[in-house]
């Protein structure tokens, strides 16, 4: 599906799944370049949307993979604060080494993911409902435990210089180090989805799960692993925020659910599964971040921010859809024999 086309013609380029996403991104970038002035185009302006895109992107990729495989994970909305609170309680409140806090947060993410995956696989209840349950369950558990342990819903955390350098550092004073974690995550997942057998498995599962299982793909195992990855990614974003902002709150994180799904869909992944690419998700996340943060560089009254965000996202998705249709309906004349 992703075999590089030997003839790099314009038509072939336009039919790549990412082309629509890229044009959507370009459109919103030019929009804010015109209305945002010199601040938007400066490195500091670029940092504004790259920083936001980075933490969202780390979560959006595994969510995208789950959606490609025909599943959904909304428990990330609780896993982000759970990750940051776990890290802050262990390393801030109890003062244990930061690696213990980081390890515990990631382990919690993996565990919640495992529970999600097992429930989805064993009960055949739609993953939207299963993870809706764990979304509330984790939020309640987090609030209850946080108050019992610390007596408050907001815990402070002073991480050491090494942890700050790796997870809470600003490169050049403005670029969050999270951006590099995002790039690393994207490279890793791009390899998995596009260059390993697991990628074909994931795409096949989204296309038709029963056929995929009949073809010998261990669909249960792949589903569980994907849920564990999304849980760990959300916990990772949570703990890096706790280290960056020196504190953790119980309530933060619900907006990631919607934002991640929007980024994935803007990035060209089909809501019904079976179609999508990592590069597309990355572009979708960038588009979403630019639309959300660019507004503050313009002279527009911030009261209208949500309206402009909505319209620009629609434009981006419509552009994307148009090009995807072209890509799916167009058949190169010389390969007409292919069924």
């Amino acid at each position, binding site marked *: 599906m992703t075999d590089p086309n030997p003839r790099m013609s314009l038509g072939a380029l336009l039919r790549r799944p990412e082309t629509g996403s890229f044009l959507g991104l370009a459109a919103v970038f030019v929009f804010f370049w015109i209305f945002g002035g010199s*601040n938007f185009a400066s490195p*500091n*302006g670029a*940092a*504004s*949307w790259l*920083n*936001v895109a*980075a*933490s*969202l992107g780390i979560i959006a990729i595994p969510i995208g993979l789950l959606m490609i495989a025909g599943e959904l994970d909304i428990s990330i909305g609780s896993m*982000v*604060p759970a990750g940051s609170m776990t890290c802050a309680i262990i390393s801030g409140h109890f003062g244990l080494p930061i690696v213990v806090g980081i390890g515990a947060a990631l382990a919690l993410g993996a565990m919640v993911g495992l529970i999600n995956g097992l429930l989805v696989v064993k009960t055949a209840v739609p993953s939207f409902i299963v993870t809706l349950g764990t979304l509330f369950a984790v939020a309640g558990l987090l*609030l*209850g435990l946080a*108050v*019992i342990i610390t*007596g*408050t*819903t*907001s*815990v*402070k955390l002073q991480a050491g210089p090494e942890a700050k350098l790796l997870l809470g550092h*600003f490169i050049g*004073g*403005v670029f*969050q180090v999270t951006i590099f974690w995002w790039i690393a995550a994207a490279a890793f997942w791009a390899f998995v989805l596009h260059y390993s057998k697991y990628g074909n498995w994931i795409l096949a599962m989204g296309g038709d799960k029963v056929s995929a299982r009949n073809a010998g793909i261990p669909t249960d195992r792949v589903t569980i692993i994907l849920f564990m990855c999304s849980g760990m990614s959300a916990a990772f974003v949570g703990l890096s*925020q706790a280290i*960056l*902002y*020196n*504190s953790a*709150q119980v*309530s*933060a*994180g*619900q*907006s*990631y659910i*919607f*934002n991640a799904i929007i980024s994935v869909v803007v990035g060209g992944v089909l809501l019904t599964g079976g179609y999508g690419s990592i590069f597309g998700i990355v572009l979708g996340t960038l588009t979403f971040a630019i639309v*959300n*943060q660019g507004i*503050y*560089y313009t002279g527009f009254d*911030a*009261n209208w*921010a*949500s309206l402009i*965000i909505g319209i620009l996202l629609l434009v981006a998705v419509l552009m994307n859809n148009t090009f995807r249709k072209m890509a799916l309906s167009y058949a190169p004349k010389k390969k007409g024999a292919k069924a």
Partner: protein
Amino acid sequence: MTIKKTLMRLAMTTTAIAFGATMALADGAVIAVVGGKADDPFFAKVKKGIDDGTLVVQAHGGTVNYLMLQNYDNIGGDAANLVRTAISQGASVIAVPNWVPDAQDEAIKAAQAAGIPVILYNSGGADKAKELGAINYIGNEEYTAGLAAGAYYGSHGFKNVICVNTVPGAQNLEDRCKGVSDGIGKEGGVSTQLPLPASAFGDPTAVAEAIKATLLGDPSINGAITISAGDANSAATGIDQAGLTGKVQLASFDMDGTGLDRIKAGTQLFAVDQQPWLQGFLAVTMADAYVNYGLAIASAPVLTGPGIVDSANIDATLAGAGAGYR
């Protein structure tokens, strides 16, 4: 067996004596206090004030019964039911926050019709207390708190302040920002609200970057106040990223440990506190004084906030926070 029996008899006798003692002492006020969950960090401090006030009530021969909401799912209806519970328990005075007047007013009127005086605390406001004929209102008023914050900025030479609102449309938060604007206006300054869309709520990076962009776009801004303590942590990063630490002064409504540390370190100007301990303590002791001796404070409302926490009182506040009072 005999030892066990003796112990049981002893225990029963003790209980009987204790029960009799309570009955004998119950000549004083029977105060019913409706309140929030004890595991809510805000109400934990209110509850501490109630517990401390209870010592006074007990010294006067009275009792305090804390009727706690089990959850916040149906806050108005549940609070109304707790007021009716207090009526049927034969309370001699009821202290209750009027969170949802539409749902609670009827129960409060029923209490007064049964001859039980009511005192409003934490929520409701002076006008509501007057309308219902309550003894008084003890608590915070959001607009007044905003006014104080605006005046503080203005009188310290900061004349252009943004009020960062992460939940635009919520009445109490709009009141806070409106107050900031009016308060700084009296000092010759201006304050505009920065409303953030729902997609930024709970994402500290999105909040921080929005504040950074706004500050870079208008170099005349020299103050930023957030509507919650958590948002102040994001704002601190946003100001830092804009390279404006020291020039743009940060403040917040409410406070947490990280914010108090910033005030101590000098990177945050102040925090506006509504002093919840006072709400609980004053509600109980005033109810006690009213029922027993007909005493009532003439000032109405009795405002427990805004209390300003800044470099002048940060050490005492940190000590209070450590002990659970702040």
